[in-house]
């Protein structure tokens, strides 16, 4: 039993923290979010140079051989600074598909571009009718020669506007919600027949609605076996959940610290409001929610390589925990800041919004309670 970080992991944390303290203060983030681009490509390059984009890939793949815990460390720091760049989409998710399911040839073709910061990816898995069900797909890929033809519509593709490559899930056989028949493809966003409409999200990012119209894909676009992609999708999304939990923990930590600090300094009725016992207990509940979330985050990231059932329970359990905790901590942080908590000016509302959206991302509390219950 050991809950300590290795020396390398501590160095990694210090490096990310140092970067963000220097270059990602809240005012800088505000500028990034309101810029036309919406993200910092130059930072992305710096992260490539610092090795952050290589972290979870094996050494053979040109990476640093870090595991889920390294990703957790990075994402927690990103959560504290409300980083908007598509690390989750590119390195964790698209990277996850390539690591876990792709052939050596596909890995050789695509991982170097991620590690070098040349390619940015987005993952188009959600559809309007599908809600959080990863198998509920209307998008189809029909066999065509030794390749496929892709048709369909994907909703709320996070990081879509920044991406040049996409991972797309589509049905190659079976009924709309069958487990069998789901396939995973690599698609160039610039390919003929791909069109995207972009828009901002409430948590300071960008997303796209993407239409695929007779997009021709070669045989080398398919990741894994045709029709057998769902377990891979589940696994990679669970890795995303592990990373997201870490991001949430980072955000909650910042909110809790800010709230305690505010309640120590804000005076009403001649005393710091932190003297009111009802607020003290509220902050204690926030703190306990945070600690429970840290535990679940460690847990899920340590169980990433267990069997499917074990991993599913860990991921859904952790997602439920951070969904509930994020909601409570976010709402109460706003409440305890009074009118200030409602403003766009203060960072509190921005953490609250991000934590709120984290519950939606990859399926909300209800979805994961069900998934947890149904996992064997």
């Amino acid at each position, binding site marked *: 039993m050991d809950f300590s970080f290795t020396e390398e992991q501590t160095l990694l944390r210090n490096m990310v923290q140092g970067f963000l303290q220097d270059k990602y203060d809240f005012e800088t983030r505000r500028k990034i979010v309101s810029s036309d681009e919406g993200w910092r490509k130059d930072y992305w390059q710096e992260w490539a140079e610092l090795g952050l984009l290589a972290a979870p890939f094996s050494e053979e793949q040109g990476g640093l051989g870090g595991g889920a815990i390294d990703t957790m460390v990075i994402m927690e720091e990103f959560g504290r600074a409300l980083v908007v760049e598509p690390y989750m989409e590119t390195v964790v998710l698209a990277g996850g598909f390539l690591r876990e399911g792709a052939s050596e040839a596909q890995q050789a073709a695509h991982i170097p571009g991620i590690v070098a910061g040349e390619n940015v990816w987005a993952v188009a898995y*959600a559809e*309007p*009718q599908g*809600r*959080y*069900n990863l198998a*509920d797909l209307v998008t189809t890929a029909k066999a065509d020669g030794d390749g496929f033809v892709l048709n369909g519509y994907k*909703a*709320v593709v*996070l990081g879509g506007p920044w991406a040049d490559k996409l991972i797309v899930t589509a049905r190659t056989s079976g009924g*709309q*919600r069958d487990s069998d028949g789901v396939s995973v493809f690599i698609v160039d966003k610039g390919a003929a027949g791909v069109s995207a*409409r*972009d*828009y*901002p*999200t*409430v*948590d300071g990012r960008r*997303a796209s*609605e993407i239409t695929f119209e007779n997009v021709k894909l070669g045989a080398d676009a398919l990741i894994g076996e045709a029709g057998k992609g769902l377990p891979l999708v589940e696994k990679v999304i669970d890795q995303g959940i592990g990373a997201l939990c870490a991001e949430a923990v980072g955000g909650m930590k910042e909110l809790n610290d800010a709230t305690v600090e505010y309640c120590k300094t804000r*005076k*009403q*009725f*001649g005393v710091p*409001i932190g003297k*009111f016992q*009802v*607020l003290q207990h509220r902050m204690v509940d926030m703190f306990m929610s945070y600690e429970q979330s840290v535990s679940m985050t460690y847990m899920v990231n340590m169980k990433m390589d267990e069997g499917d059932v074990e991993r599913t329970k860990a991921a859904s359990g952790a997602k439920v925990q951070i969904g509930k905790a994020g909601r409570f901590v976010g*709402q109460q942080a*706003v*409440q305890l800041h*009074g*009118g200030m*908590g*409602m*403003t*766009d*000016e203060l960072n509190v*509302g*921005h953490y*609250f*919004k991000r934590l*709120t*959206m984290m519950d*939606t991302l990859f399926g*909300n509390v*209800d979805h994961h*309670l*069900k998934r947890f219950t149904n996992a064997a």
Partner: protein
Amino acid sequence: MDMSFSPEDLAFRDEVRAFIEEKFPREIANKRSRGDMSKEDILAWHRILHDKGWVTPSWPKEYGGVGWTITQRYIWNEECARAETTPLLPFGLSMVGPVIYSFGNEEQKARFLPGIRSGDDWWCQGYSEPGSGSDLASLRTKAERVGDEYVVNGSKTWTTLAQFADWMFCLVRTDSSVKQQEGISFLLIDMKTPGITVRPIITMDGAHEVNEVFLEDVRVPAENLIGEENKGWTYAKFLLGNERSGIAGVARSKKAIERLKVIAGAELIDGQPLLDEEEFSRKIAEVEIDLAALEVTELRTLASESRGKGPGPESSILKVKGTEVQQRITELTMEAVGNYAFVYSPHGHEQPGNNFVPGPDYSIGASQNYFNMRKTSIYGGSNEIQHNIIAKMVLGL
């Protein structure tokens, strides 16, 4: 005990329903939120009701009240909510208006009440200050009597829709040497007076609803003082009681639950309507039950008010429970729209640019609405403060 409508009540319902149907401007109904409406949009319905003589149903008859029974007022609110008419702004009609007819002199009544009724005067509430929110009585904006004027210096904040306001009712300190509550006065300030600066505060949902108001050597005629100097706290509290019960919003919440059900009926989960899913439908049922309880609680309060008791500390129950219900409904609505909760929908005051807003119409602004409604447990006296009031005034703790 009887909660049923009489034949007269039903006839009244038909009458007001027909009136709303005929007169409420549909093009306004389609605008999403106050944030996107112009001043005239917001006022349009007010003016129509004024022409009809129905804009101040709860005022005493002599000041323009309609003399409706509480049942009729209830029916009226229900019908307005049902048709989703523009909510009337409370600042004139339910806040300062009653203060003026209860505590103002005849000249003030003659001067200010017509503008409140017609909507020609837009009022804003100058209570909160940067240092005085929950502890309102600690307010520091100072008014010094110089000849027949007050000279006002200080700043107010969170002032809702002050960007449109013609007048502000303002709590000011006129005596610093006595107990806080005993040195406060209630002043009516013309927003066009030199020395007043209004600066926007953008809230986290992107809306421009609130403002900071700076007052620098603002000269206010002494005739704009309501009641007696240094007695303002009494009037201020009277107003807060009205404000609190006004926040409950029962009829509007009913409509919002109806909408939520329509959305949950259209959204799919594994091919079935979300509304049919047990977890989600139970969550709707829970908030519906909370609202049903609140509705009767409000009617009980109104009934005792109509027997001559003003809104007492019980109005704090309405404020707490009403805002909890509103927040819950907006939260469930956001939850219902699923992934499209991510979409940001720009406000009217923002630069037109990328205005692509995907997803079904009902999902537009769902999460921003939820973010915005977090304000309701903060304003009007925070919900923690309402708990303190009930603990002290009702339970005697």
